[in-house]
């Protein structure tokens, strides 16, 4: 089994689905001839034809509107938004249309679309190429929100998203595209090659939406993370020698509450870490759910380690990013609390 990067795994997911389902089409800025600015759709137009993988005008709202109409017709469109930071013009179509269509038509129409967008920082993208906007979408009823942390999950989750009959927002941590990232920007980049999760089958398989992954067993504290922060949390636990149990949520909505509750009831402590800004971030929902379900098992206040409530500053990227030092500090606070 060849090792795949996350880019290759995502590409393979779309290649597989284009091959299996003639109703799958892909469009977005620069995704056709060029294959996407991150190369995620590389070669797909050449292989599957320009009617199936094509360039779109720079109009995210238009792309999503068109995807809603295509979905209502019966296609399964995949829209690439070049950066999650550019998704805002599409939010009206996502929130007012895609997410509501099944409900407001009492099941007459629906929009089985997938929106892919690279998210997160770590590549010196500045304020407009670094944001993590997942909480905007988890707040919307009718949308599913997915964020993978490795190539195997990325492919399996993307296939599940494409096959899902509800609209799915699929965020791809761009810092993980070409290798896992331990959160230390001063260390050399590591490729996916030797990572166990880079072993990706060539063909069709799924990773179900709504199921978290236990990526590290531990007894001292539960860590709830997703995307890039999975790797950062693993690093933090190792470096601080803390017996942390790390859960990769993979899907934020629907959320795998059982895995979370089982773990927190076992450890009695909980740290939540995400790259997105803190206030009303997804961590706030997680903290509320943990206290609702596990209050009498908690031995310490829930700790949040997050991006600051500021825009993502270009030169100060690593002061903003919740790296392993800050996560380890959060783990210690949860243990001391």
């Amino acid at each position, binding site marked *: 089994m060849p090792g795949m990067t996350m880019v290759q795994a995502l590409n393979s997911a779309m290649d597989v689905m284009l091959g299996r389902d003639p109703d799958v089409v892909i469009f977005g800025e620069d995704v056709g001839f060029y294959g996407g600015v991150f190369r995620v759709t590389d070669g797909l137009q050449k292989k599957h034809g320009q009617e199936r993988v094509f360039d779109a005008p720079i109009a995210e*709202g238009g792309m999503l*509107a068109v995807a809603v109409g295509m979905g209502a*017709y019966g296609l399964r469109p995949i829209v690439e938004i070049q950066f999650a930071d550019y998704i805002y013009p599409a939010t009206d179509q996502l929130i007012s249309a895609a997410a509501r269509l099944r409900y407001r038509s009492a099941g007459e129409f629906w929009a089985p679309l997938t929106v892919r967008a690279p998210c997160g920082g770590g590549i010196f993208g500045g304020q407009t190429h670094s944001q993590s906007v997942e909480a905007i979408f988890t707040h919307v009823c009718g949308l599913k929100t997915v964020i993978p942390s490795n190539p195997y999950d990325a492919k399996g989750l993307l296939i599940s998203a494409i096959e899902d009959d509800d609209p799915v927002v699929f965020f791809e941590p761009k810092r993980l595209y070409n290798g896992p990232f331990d959160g230390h920007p001063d260390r050399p980049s590591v490729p996916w090659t030797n990572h166990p999760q880079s072993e990706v089958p060539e063909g069709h398989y799924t990773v179900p939406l709504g199921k978290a992954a236990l990526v590290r067993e531990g007894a001292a504290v539960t860590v709830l993370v997703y995307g890039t922060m999975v790797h950062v949390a693993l690093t933090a636990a190792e470096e601080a020698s803390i017996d942390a149990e790390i859960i990769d949520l993979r899907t934020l909505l629907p959320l795998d509450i059982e895995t979370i509750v089982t773990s927190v009831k076992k450890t009695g402590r909980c740290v939540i870490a995400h790259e997105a800004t803190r206030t009303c971030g997804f961590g706030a929902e997680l903290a509320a759910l943990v206290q609702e379900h596990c209050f009498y098992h908690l031995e310490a206040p829930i700790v949040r380690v997050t991006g600051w409530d500021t825009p993502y500053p270009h030169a100060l990227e690593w002061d903003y990013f919740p790296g392993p030092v800050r996560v380890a500090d959060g783990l210690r606070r949860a243990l001391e609390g």
Partner: protein
Amino acid sequence: MDTAIPPSSDSNAPPRLKLHIPPHHPAPGETPDFSYVRRYAAGVTERPATDVPAHATHELAYHLIRVLDDDGAAVGAWDPKLDPETLRRGLRAMMLTRAYDDRMMRAQRRGKTSFYMKCTGEEAVAVAQAFALAPDDMAFPTYRQQGILIARGWPLLDMMCQCYSNAKDRLKGRQLPVLYSAREASFFSLAGNLGNQFPQAVGWAMASAYKGDHRIAAAWTGEGATAEGDFHHALTFASVYRAPVVLNVVNNQWAISSHQEVAGGEEATFAARAIGFGLACLRVDGNDFLAVYAATQWAAARARANHGATLIELFTYRAGPHSTSDDPNRYRPEDEWKLWPLGDPIERLSRHLVRLGEWSPERHAQLESELADEVRDAAREAERYGTLDQGPHFSAKTMFEDVFKEMPWHLRRQRQELGV
């Protein structure tokens, strides 16, 4: 902070800049003024072939396609030459739409539902367009195209049950009255967000083209919502992908209390929006059943032959209020609609049929009374299934259904919390 700029004493200073706000005119109590409506004679506008390059239609953006003249004769190249039976069916659908609107407006006033929106004066738009489209062409309407459902023979009972949000409402009481959805009638679920569905129709049309289907899409927006980015998106995507779609702007002069000038109608027509996108355009007398039919037929034929989208401006007048929630007498002269220079669509088609010897004032009056009975009977039946004020409604547990195809745990839990 005082932002006033002191007067300049320098006589060579450039002129002061001036902000232009379109005037609100005429106001209630003033004399209606339709001097801005250029009343082209019927029959004078040329009809290009449906496969001409888009630019060959662009001068039509500043014309007005009219077929019915003041005497009720059908004249000129745009006369669709419909047989009398089709004309009578068209008249009937328009009259039924008006009767339905009147009944539901009264039902709202009597508290049987929360809200209603009539299309009085604009019946030719939806009805003639539905007649010109194939029954399975997908319509993405606004809330003022109830005439499409009626023209397609959709049961009034079903529409009324939706407006009453009662136990037989196919939308289970989830949608505001008039925001219908009827997949079997190729009538797309109405959003209520203005403009939002205009580009969705383009996507549907692209999908139909991708699949090698024969069905085209048609979308409607009011002139007011052409100011939304969605309108621009629709025209861009329709142009880039040559989507088989008919894009309709119903210019009924008013967006609630804002005149069409506030939407950008002062310096250019809405049909002229097509020019910069390289789309074909037609501008048509929206109160002329024959002209609306002919323009729509032209655009549909063009789309079906893979020549792309047409933007049609339907020039009409909103004779009623925007909805049950506003009083037009507070923002426009009370008698303005009576003076609309392009007349009433029902009267005009009726006069045409009379002129053809295919109709009479007696038959018209008789039909009017039959339709009122039909609407009354449907309303009585609908009310047996409930009204918004009296119920019954769908049970509260249905509130949690259809958010997703399968209900996730958090919604099941919230349903338990509600105790249903």
